[in-house]
């Protein structure tokens, strides 16, 4: 066929110059453990990040990052721009689902002790990816410049300001001054649209490179003979992953349609709402600060985060058997229960 010939010729033209097929083959045509149980969480996090990049790019075409214009530009996106409401609502929901996917992915890897040698570096970068994702959420929350955005950022940055010794400097660094102002908005916009995407994309490439290089870990209970069973990454595994992504997409469409992203009245530093709360993923910290002395909460959070970050170097035993890691698993259950409990408490109080 003439068309076939034409496409083949274009393909060959590229192949001669870029040699893409070799790279694609190296990436796709690999065998992975047949019994690896990823639960597709890492892939889903990647999918939601892709959605964020696409919808965020579209939103940036209409968004204006100044206190005078930000609110009205969001209102315009929601009311006038064709499918603007859908793009923004999907962006907002995808942000939440991405955080959930990243946290669940981290928990899955922790439970399977997949961070152990030789995957320590993958874990470290993974934790940094989680922190970057939370940073995305924190900075993005302010951009609509409505009351909820303004005051959640005020409360959220107060938490940072309560850190001993460096707190005040950190608060002023975040806000670009002592208060949340237009300077803060510009700063958050820059971090949200430039610094964090570059950071996260770089970390993500490293993460994927390491995953590709080390392969997937099989669950610790898998019998040795089953652990050796392989299947092709393409198309077998990727098809499953694609199904998971489509399910994620369906969930996004449903949430965005039934619960589109809202917009409160325009931010007013002079009008404090009755109930100010940070985003849900900071609620546990917010509630803990209400209950216990500031220094204890911050110290506990710092120690907790350090333990999570350095767990491959603390839990150095070779065994991945859950029975021999009972202490770690119980600690994880307790930590998750406490964080979830505090979050619910913070939400309803």
């Amino acid at each position: 066929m003439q068309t076939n010939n034409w496409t083949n010729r274009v393909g060959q033209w590229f192949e001669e110059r870029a040699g893409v097929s070799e790279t694609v083959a190296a990436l796709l045509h690999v065998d992975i453990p047949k019994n690896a149980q990823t639960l597709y969480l890492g892939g889903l996090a990647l999918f939601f990040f892709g959605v964020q990049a696409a919808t965020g790019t579209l939103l940036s075409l209409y968004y204006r990052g100044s206190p005078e214009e930000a609110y009205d530009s969001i209102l315009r996106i929601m009311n006038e721009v064709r499918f603007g409401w859908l793009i923004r609502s999907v962006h907002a929901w995808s942000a939440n689902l991405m955080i959930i996917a990243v946290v669940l992915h981290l928990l899955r890897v922790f439970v399977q002790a997949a961070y152990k040698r030789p995957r320590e570096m993958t874990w470290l970068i993974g934790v940094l990816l989680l922190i970057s994702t939370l940073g995305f959420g924190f900075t993005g929350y302010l951009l609509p410049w409505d009351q909820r955005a303004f005051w959640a950022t005020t409360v959220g940055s107060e938490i940072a300001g309560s850190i001993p010794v460096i707190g005040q400097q950190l608060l002023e660094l975040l806000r670009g001054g002592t208060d949340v102002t237009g300077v803060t908005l510009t700063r958050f916009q820059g971090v949200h649209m430039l610094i964090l995407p570059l950071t996260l994309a770089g970390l993500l490439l490293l993460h994927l490179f390491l995953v590709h290089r080390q392969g997937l870990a099989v669950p610790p209970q898998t019998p040795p003979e089953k652990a050796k069973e392989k299947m092709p990454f393409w198309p077998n595994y990727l098809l499953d992953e694609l199904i998971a992504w489509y399910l994620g997409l369906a969930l996004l469409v449903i949430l965005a349609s039934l619960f589109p992203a809202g917009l409160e009245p325009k931010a007013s530093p002079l009008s404090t709402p009755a109930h100010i709360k940070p985003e849900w993923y900071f609620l546990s910290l917010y509630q803990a600060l209400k209950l216990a002395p500031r220094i204890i909460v911050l110290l506990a959070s710092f120690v907790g985060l350090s333990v999570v970050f350095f767990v491959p170097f603390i839990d150095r035993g070779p065994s991945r058997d859950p029975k021999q890691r009972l202490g770690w698993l119980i600690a994880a259950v307790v930590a998750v229960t406490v964080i979830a409990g505090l979050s619910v408490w913070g939400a309803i109080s």
Partner: protein
Amino acid sequence: MKEKKPMTQHHLWRMLAVAAVGVIVILLTTAARLAQPPIPHDLTGRQDCLACHEQGVNGAPKFPANHAGRTNDMCQGCHHPAAGAAPTSTPPVVPTATAGAAPTSATGGPPSIPHDVIGRDDCLVCHATGQAGAPKVPDDHAGRTKDTCRTCHQPSVTQPTTVPPTPAVLPPTPIPHPAAGGKNSCADCHRTLSGKLQQPVTDWEGSIHAARNVGCADCHGGDPTSADPNGSMASAAGYIGAPDKASIPALCGSCHANVEMMRQYDLPTDQLSKYQESKHGQLLAKGDRNVATCFDCHDGHATRQTNDPGTSVYPLNVPALCARCHADAALMKPYGIPTNQYDLFKSSVHGIALLKNQDLRAPSCATCHGTHGATPPGFEEVANVCGSCHSATQDYFLKSKHASVADGPKCVTCHGRYDVGVPSDDMFTGNGQRQCGQCHPAGSPQAETVKSLYTAIHQAAITYDQAGKAIAQAASLQMIVGPEEEQLQQAKTSLLTARAAQHTGQLADVSKLTGQAVSISQQTIQAAEAKVAESIFRRKAMVVAVVMIGLVIVALVIVKRALVA
């Protein structure tokens, strides 16, 4: 007519006999009286004879058993002061020595009072428990009240007895303001006491006066640098004790009417002159001691700044403050004024806003009646008083025929005085109290205008409510309704302005405004309904999208199965 008979000898003898009997009775009575023991002491301050003579205390002769049942007012029927009983004579000798270190009188009578008695009317405050080194009341004085002390004990210090008459207009009183040099021995001493002697210091310590270094001596005089109570509270040191009530406004005014002194605190200085013009001030000048002075409203010694929520004159507390006197039926009886104002106010729209919602924009008693110049506004002034807040409504009202008619209706006629309620469109209908029909009977031209006003405003209100419901429905579907809510505010403004403009009674003006309200409300309804339609479309589109995604998933599953097979 009866003929007058000449006096006979028989008649003459009879008259002489009667006169002789009368003389004998008088002589016998006088002799009997002269036979009673005379009163050997001065009677000043000793009206209660029985206080000493009933039990025979302080060496006073106990009255005989046959005097049982006789009262104080009967004593001087028989007993009279002896000719030599000079005003300075001393009471009978005190047989007991329980007075301790207290100095006795020169003639050995009961101990004299060694200190000034100005401001020390209640001896028992100190002497009942022996506070501040005062001799404790002896045991045999048990049961005696503070009113009986001066019957026997007299001050040894000469007191200034002349009280300056209260002038009709009270000028600021030049009080000593002695140089205290940072000392306040009054507070130092009274802080260590208890009860009534300590309370003023406790109150003062939390006051704005304490914070601004206005001490006890600035109002009470005396020497705050002296640690000796007899020196610090000596009349020679300018000590005046508790200031007379009539002099309190002027005393406060000695500072608060002083422009130079008050400038540094950015306080007004017209309180005294306003008070003198007020009902309270006028009555006080006439000698009425029931009226409120500065001390009564500004928390006495604990006076604080008026923006302090704890002070009685803070706007939220003012109604209860005024009610302390004005809700007291017994206190108000002589003035013939009602006492239900506070109860009426509490349930009024103003009272609910101020007391329940703590909305400081709402008026308290002082807003309408004035603060220091408190005087009830006259009927003609009412529109101005209400108009100080409801200025737009007042402007409309002043353009109306109601305002131009002598003795025409004022704000209170339709809205009430203390019990102002939430105005409703029902005021246009019916002929009950506070309704238009009360004055304008059905069929009159004015009643027709009222009916048209009602129809225009009521229709605008209904359309406005419908717009609100349409917005609520769109919001319940998670749609952003900020612009629609903003639009509805414009309709609300037009409706509120129409309601205010109806005070002119001009139908054309009101109809123009209600027309605007209806038009904007209808636009809002359309916009909100478009949002609802958009939400329904989104949900339908969502179903289509989810079905398509489902089909793709099914296709992928089929491909996967084929691949595995």
